[in-house]
């Protein structure tokens, strides 16, 4: 509202804010936060106590995606909606567009979370990080997201405030970019109700996945939360935002540059080097736009630091914004190839992400919860003291979590790369490097436990707060009707023009975020020379294909990479470095992003079938000290091949060159290969009359195939 043009009091319109939907989302945020973090704690403890992998449904490979999805989409997702539904109404001086849509949105989103919580432990997964949910749930997400969009833009259309505040720019950019990312990364062809194959394969799938994965961090964990910061931080501090112009520059720069940086997740992989370089330089350019947000947050607190000392809301926010600044500096540094050569595949990355999620997202959410709930219940916070204790538990929890992981990452990476003067690896056994960092894993779990305990304290505090107040379901408000748009814009700052035009703002943001993605994905998909072909690479046999899908079901890619980087320390340990042409039939790619266990890209032919059999039955028997859980159900369950013909047909549609009519012959081929492996196992003392029908045979077939297509030879001839 313009302040100088004072409207007469008589023209005020009376309306009310919907606080009930805010309450719903606030409760969901707290509940799913506790669940998601507890699952994370379980996963952290499984590293130290492998016995905690109780059943197939609770093995680390299935629990880890459950944790990431719950933390991102359930905890932070509901947190976004809580903050948006609270602030949007007040910033636009109007009620949400439609109460009905609000509740469809709320229940729809909870249903999706429920579907994720059910399918992921069952092994129904696409294996693509932060996009593990299968295609029917993907469609559900799209629908709910569109409903949220309609509700948001409907509210904007009915606003009583001509100009949109910076928080809303961030909400709009979030909405459009998440839509684009979700659709782009979910391009997949269903095989059955719970199985699909992605449109892209191998290196192209990897690029699309990390374009998505990186920008899920950017546009689900960052931009909406910057929007929340821009509303709740100045409100809580009662201070004006430091710089309007800084908001403008860092908003547009951030959304434009962020999109390009995805390839920094694939440095030194088989991704073409031009794409890797784009990832690096755009990550460096991202430092200043990211810090713009931190500066505008911290500098807004000038003159309010005395309040920060006593107000738990502000305390949480200060640490959140600082953690944001630290994580967004660390990210670009990790994108330098020389740093990435050390950090990638180690726990350094895990520590980095958690400074962002626990520090920035977690603590900002806590601050917003402590801000909103007393207000919508017309009361004070039950106990400021408890909130202060929570603040310290959260802050120390983040530190206790992250510091041991930085240490672990460095230690393990250094051990991976250590050679003896004779030219052989000092720690040739991967397990030595795992066992060296188990104490750090234990400390990390302690840090996580402290953080979760803080959340329990918060929930207690919030319950008591809610009990001592009563919900103001419809909070009365009054505002003058929407004033006419100024005829000209002479004398006003240029950006004011777009601030009163939501459609143009939406279109502008869309164009800005599309540029980077198209510039990287299009050449990668269209230009054939980006993936040099290798003659010897052939499609997977039916049994190998089924084995691969079991590998995906069990989430093996959460701990094992399939991407050997061109370093001496990697080729000495694993064999010839990976080449893009080897992955052209990989739908989806299974490169992985973290090595809790060794890389598997060249594991084919390294061990006997019977070694794999015993290893799956009890990893400690073949690899003493291993923290991998046993997979004895693979030895017991019969392989379900009912979808095999459909799988072959789907892959043919996507371009895998199986001969025509192969779908009908695939089962017979599968039986022959299974028989061979079963006989081989029997010769080595495995006693099971139905061996050839068991899942273990398929996964052994897949593992023995891995990386064997090519003989070691360099892909690129030396220039000189």
């Amino acid at each position, binding site marked *: *509202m*313009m*302040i*100088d043009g004072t409207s007469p009091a008589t023209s005020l319109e009376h309306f009310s804010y919907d606080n009930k939907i805010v309450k719903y989302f606030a409760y969901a945020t707290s509940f799913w936060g506790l669940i998601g973090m507890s699952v994370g704690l379980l996963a952290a403890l499984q590293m130290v106590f492998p016995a905690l992998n109780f059943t197939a449904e609770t093995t680390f490979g299935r629990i880890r995606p459950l944790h990431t999805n719950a933390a991102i989409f359930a905890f932070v997702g509901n947190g976004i909606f809580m903050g948006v539904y609270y*602030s949007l109404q007040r*910033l636009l*001086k109007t009620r949400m567009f439609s109460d009905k849509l609000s509740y469809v949105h709320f229940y729809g989103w909870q249903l999706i979370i429920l579907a994720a919580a059910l399918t992921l432990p069952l092994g129904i997964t696409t294996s693509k990080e932060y996009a593990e949910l299968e295609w029917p749930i993907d469609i559900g997400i799209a629908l709910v997201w569109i409903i949220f969009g309609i509700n948001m833009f409907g509210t904007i259309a009915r606003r009583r405030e001509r100009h949109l*505040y910076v928080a809303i720019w961030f909400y709009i950019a979030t909405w459009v970019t998440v839509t684009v990312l979700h659709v782009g990364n979910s391009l997949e062809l269903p095989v059955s109700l719970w199985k699909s194959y992605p449109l892209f394969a191998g290196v192209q799938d990897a690029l699309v996945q990390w374009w998505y994965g990186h920008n899920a961090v950017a546009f689900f964990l960052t931009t909406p939360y910057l929007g929340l910061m*821009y*509303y709740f931080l*100045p*409100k809580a501090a009662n201070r*004006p*935002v*430091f*710089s*309007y*112009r*800084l*908001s403008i520059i860092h908003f547009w*720069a951030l959304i434009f540059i962020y999109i390009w940086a995805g390839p920094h997740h694939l440095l030194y992989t088989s991704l073409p*080097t*031009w794409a890797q*370089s784009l990832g690096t330089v755009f990550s*460096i*350019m991202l*430092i*200043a*736009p990211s*810090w713009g947000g931190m*500066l505008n947050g911290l*500098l807004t607190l*000038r*003159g309010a630091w005395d309040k920060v000392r006593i107000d738990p809301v502000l305390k949480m926010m200060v640490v959140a914004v600082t953690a944001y600044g630290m994580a967004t500096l660390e990210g670009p540094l990790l994108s330098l190839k020389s740093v990435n050569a050390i950090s990638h595949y180690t726990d350094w990355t895990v520590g980095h992400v958690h400074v962002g999620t626990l520090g920035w997202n977690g603590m900002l959410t806590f601050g917003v919860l402590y801000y909103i709930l007393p207000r919508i219940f017309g009361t004070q916070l039950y106990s400021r003291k408890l909130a202060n204790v929570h603040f310290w538990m959260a802050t120390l929890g983040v530190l206790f979590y992250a510091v041991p992981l930085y240490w672990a990452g460095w230690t393990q990476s250094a051990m991976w790369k250590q050679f003896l*003067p*004779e*030219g*052989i*690896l000092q720690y*040739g*056994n991967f397990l030595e490097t795992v066992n060296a960092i188990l104490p750090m894993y234990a400390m990390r779990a302690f840090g996580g436990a402290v953080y979760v305990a803080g959340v329990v304290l918060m929930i207690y505090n919030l319950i008591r707060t809610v009990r001592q107040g009563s919900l103001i379901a419809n909070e009365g408000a009054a505002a003058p009707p929407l004033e006419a748009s100024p005829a000209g814009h002479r004398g006003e700052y240029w950006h004011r023009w777009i601030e009163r035009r939501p459609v143009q703002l939406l279109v502008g943001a869309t164009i800005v975020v599309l540029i980077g993605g198209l510039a990287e994905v299009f050449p990668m998909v269209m230009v054939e020379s980006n993936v040099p072909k290798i003659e010897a690479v052939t499609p997977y046999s039916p049994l190998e294909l089924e084995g691969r899908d079991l590998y995906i079901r069990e989430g093996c890619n959460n701990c094992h990479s399939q991407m050997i980087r*061109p370093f*001496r320390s990697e*080729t*000495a340990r694993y064999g010839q470095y990976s080449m893009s042409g080897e992955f052209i039939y990989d739908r989806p790619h299974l490169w992985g992003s973290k090595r809790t266990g060794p890389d598997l890209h060249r594991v084919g*032919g390294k*061990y*006997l079938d*019977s*070694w794999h059999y*015993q290893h799956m039955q009890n990893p400690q*028997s*073949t*690899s*003493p000290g291993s923290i991998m859980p046993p997979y004895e159900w693979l030895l017991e369950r019969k392989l379900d091949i009912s979808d095999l013909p459909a799988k072959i047909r789907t892959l043919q549609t996507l371009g895998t060159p199986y001969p025509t009519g192969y779908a009908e012959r695939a089962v017979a081929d599968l039986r022959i290969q299974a028989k061979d492996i079963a006989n081989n196992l029997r010769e080595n003392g495995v006693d099971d009359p139905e061996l050839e029908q068991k899942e273990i045979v398929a996964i052994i077939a897949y593992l023995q195939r891995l990386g064997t297509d090519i003989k070691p030879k*360099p*892909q*690129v001839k*030396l*220039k000189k």
Partner: protein
Amino acid sequence: MAKYLLQDAGINWLAILALLTFVIVFTLALIMVFARRKDSYRDVAQQPLKDSYLLLLLAPAPSPPYPGPLASMSELELFAAFVMVLVILLGLWSLLDLSFKLMALQRERLLRKYHPEQLQEVGLEQLEPTKAWWQRLYERMTDAVPIEEEAAIVLNHEYDGVRELDNNLPPWWTGLFYVTIAIAPVYVYFVHFSDFALSPAEAYDVEMTLAEAKVQAYLKTQENSVDENNVVLLEEADAIDAGQMIFSAKCSPCHGKAAEGGIGPNLTDEYWLHGGSVNDVFRTIKNGVPEKGMIPWKNELRPRDIQEVASYILSLQSTNPANGKEPEGERYIAEATSK
């Protein structure tokens, strides 16, 4: 006179000492830099400047043979010379600055004595104390309107009570942004177009070649390294113990804790798939038998380690552990003398 002037200017003997030290260092530096082959500076002047010369100093790649005096300097010396020139320039600047200030002080002293009314006109007494350069730099770099004066820059709009200030972009932030943007083309040029651009595959080949040379150089310093042709059975208790340690860590998962066999064959009987002499056992451990699932250990165990573990294995002959796997392969009887 000089004493009077200095006292008046508030300069004490410490400053003189600093100045003297500087002059000595300055002279020494000059001598060090210019004493090197004075006559060939003309050659230097005629040399075309190499592409990104300064970065050459930092780049690990060997620079091409380069005539002239600079070539005779090591990279470190070049860097030192560069730093010295910088120090000298800074010193010259501060000398100049100091003399101007001394002159101004002297002028002020004279004016105060003979024409105090002129000083009044200038308003020197009313001037505020000047700020130190770092204070000025800080203010210039942050460029924020102080809180007391921010009423002047509050923008005339508010959203649910949230107001916005019209502070400038912090210049240090803008500078950082420009620098990071400028890095992009330089980075792309160096990684993809310059003489130093190596693809990951090329860099890998260089890494392997250098490492191999280093390993070979090391191996040359080691006398008679053990291989499958010259290996002998070790019988000292120390060696057998060391072999046992390796065996239980690396071999027992497949061959059993007592070498009774498991995934791999029994190693305690007289039957061998790949030969039972110490040379054969050494070779089998070293190179593995991939088609049978025996992995090569040469990338994990040093020759001496392999010798120890082979000796340990052969020390287990006829121990008949429980649950022994049935014999496989051909019978091999060790000769009476093991050496």
